[in-house]
């Protein structure tokens, strides 16, 4: 039994300073209790308590690239970051593109008891963009999020067929990495002032916008549930906003790094600032930040992309794309949303749990609800000096953060604690 006292608790009815009692894998009661009967008592004065965080977008590198990360280290990073559920991208080696591979991924994930890991399925066979993956077989194995993340489906014809298939499967989501490769093939950073300055080919924001526009049209046409991954441009925000206004059910995510950084950080070409989509302009950053505040962008997802130290210690143009994000997300999102507890949990827990179909997550604590919880101190200052992840390719390594996860509780067990 865990008794958490004095926290500001996000309840379904609002925010209240009260006591939450966890017993077994559920929340047993809300409100003052007299006797603790030897329970673990946590004084969380000043901290927020709410549903455990949910990340719709992580790369756990297993199977195939476990020198970068594996499920165990990824789960440790998740717990340290306040997460209780992850959606793992299917761009493993081999990619998750068949029913058998989806079932195998599910079996392996069941061995992890500190965080719930669900694996997304690829949209196309081998993520090659040429033919449909085993969508139905993966769906039967429990897959709900489908994506070729790392690439968009290149052809509108194939994507339309995929959308028609998935529109018939309740809860299935087409998640797209919006990047028109014909416009980005040689690019390494945002096309703009910094690509001009360095003379390095850029990725124009138009490359993201044209795919978002195409996908919105096809989603409306087919009735498929569309989710746009890591939105980074003002243009994509405008397109999503317009589609929402016209009644389309489309969801979107943004990463913490696109909320906190823009291309001006690239006056020196640091491989730990190389990711796709790239850091955009300050006005793009303002647009995605505003959209997250409004809810036009529903969720924050980290796009946690671990790489080994030596893999990133290479020329910028040869560096692999991606940065890690699980352990710094909560602090960065808290800063980006301006200390708004309700929005913090909505964007980092409730919305992603809804989008990913994760019923046991994103539920504000109430008697009988699953004990997947996080205690977060929005005022605590700390500096990430090392990570539970195998990787350290973070632009925030050594930078002061405001807001710290104090404890993560998964299925009633404390999976991480620090500074309580």
């Amino acid at each position, binding site marked *: 039994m865990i008794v958490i006292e004095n926290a500001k608790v996000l309840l379904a009815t609002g925010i209240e300073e009260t006591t939450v009692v966890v017993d077994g894998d559920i929340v047993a009661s809300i409100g003052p209790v007299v006797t603790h009967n030897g329970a673990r008592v946590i004084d969380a004065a000043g901290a927020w308590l709410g549903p455990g965080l949910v990340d719709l977008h992580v790369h756990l590198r297993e199977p195939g690239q476990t020198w970068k990360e594996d499920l165990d280290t990824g789960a440790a990073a998740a717990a340290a970051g306040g997460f209780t559920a992850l959606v793992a991208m299917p761009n493993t080696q081999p990619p998750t593109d068949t029913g058998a591979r989806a079932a195998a991924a599910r079996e392996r994930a069941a061995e992890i008891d500190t965080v719930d890991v669900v694996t997304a399925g690829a949209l196309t066979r081998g993520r090659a963009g040429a033919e449909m993956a085993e969508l139905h077989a993966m769906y039967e194995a429990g897959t709900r999020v489908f994506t070729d993340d790392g690439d968009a489906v290149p052809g509108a014809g194939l994507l339309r067929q995929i959308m028609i298939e998935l529109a018939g499967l309740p809860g299935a989501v087409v998640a797209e990495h919006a990047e028109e490769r014909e416009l980005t093939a040689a690019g390494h950073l945002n096309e*703009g002032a910094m*690509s001009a300055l*360095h003379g*390095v080919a850029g990725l*124009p924001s138009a490359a993201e916008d044209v795919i978002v526009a195409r996908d919105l049209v096809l989603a409306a046409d087919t009735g498929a549930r569309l989710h746009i991954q890591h939105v980074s441009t003002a243009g994509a925000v405008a397109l999503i906003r317009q589609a929402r206004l016209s009644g389309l059910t489309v969801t979107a995510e943004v990463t913490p790094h696109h909320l906190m950084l823009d291309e001006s950080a690239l006056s020196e070409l640091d491989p730990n600032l190389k990711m796709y989509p790239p850091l955009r302009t300050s006005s793009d950053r303002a647009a995605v930040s505003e959209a997250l505040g409004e809810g036009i962008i529903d969720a924050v997802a980290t796009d946690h992309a671990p790489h080994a130290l030596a893999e990133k210690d290479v020329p910028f143009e040869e560096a692999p794309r991606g940065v890690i994000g699980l352990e710094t997300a909560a602090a960065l999102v808290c800063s980006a949303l301006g200390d708004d507890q309700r929005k913090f949990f909505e964007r980092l827990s409730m919305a992603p749990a809804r989008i990913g179909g994760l019923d046991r997550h994103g539920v504000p604590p109430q008697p009988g609800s699953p004990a997947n919880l996080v205690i977060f101190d929005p005022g605590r200052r700390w500096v990430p000096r090392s990570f539970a992840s195998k990787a350290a390719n973070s632009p925030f390594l050594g930078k002061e953060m405001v807001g710290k996860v104090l404890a993560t509780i998964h299925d009633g067990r404390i999976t991480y604690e620090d500074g309580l």
Partner: protein
Amino acid sequence: MNGLTTLHGMPLGEIEALLDAGQRYAEFVQSGEAIRPVLAGRTVTTLFYEPSTRTRLSFEKAARSLGADVMTFVPESSSSVKGESFRDTVLTLAAMGSDALVLRHSLVDAAQLAARWSGLPVVNAGTGRREHPTQTLVDALTIRQHFGGLAGLRMAIVGDIANSRVARGHLSTFPRLGMELTLVGPPSLLPPANPWNVPILTELDAVVGEVDIVYLLRVQRERGAAAGSSESTYTRRYGMTAERLPLLKPSSVVMHPGPINRGVEIDDAVADGDRSLILRQVSNGVPVRMAVLDLAIGKSE
């Protein structure tokens, strides 16, 4: 000064010191006086991942003139050089006893990485499309010799700006030395943005009569299609032709980093005429590189 990986952000005093030393070496070379072997007993290794006979030879001659031993590394394959093997090559050359590296590479940050990996002074002989510091110094010295200084002069850089390391290098240094730059080229060969806040034009005739220096870039013929025009159209719009020469101010000059494409971006009459500083640029190549090797390597002990 420990190596010369970039001119970007270098204190103006150090740039001036390099130009002053370049001037002294130019005078030494001219007069045939004996030059102090400041690099005696030291090994300078040239490492060129892109073909550039002229720059490499002028570095090697400069190093030998200062008494250095020279090693020349020729990468087996310049097109598919990956980060790992580049790093290994740099470490190998350091372990073989190089005291300094002179590096040309297609990757933008190769010089900084080579310096960090090897711990050796590295002289940038052209990296990515970002910079070519010794060309910028050669051109600065050439301009200084001709005009007596750089401040207040106006230069138009003409041609394939998007792909030019020389243009980008000039853009980050010449304005700091008081010059005003204008970029001229076909729209598809201009950079995608203007972080330098300089005028960007698509017609040479709009500015040719106003600038002190017309700086022509080599037309890279394989990119002709990207320019959206045939060579003859390019020459008509952006070439320094004999017909365009009278439009220049009487005091204005024409420069080119070489090698030149006669009849494309420049006519014979211009290249070989009295308004051309092209040969002067070439002859400043060795003394400026002597100055760089002297100041950036010779005194690092």
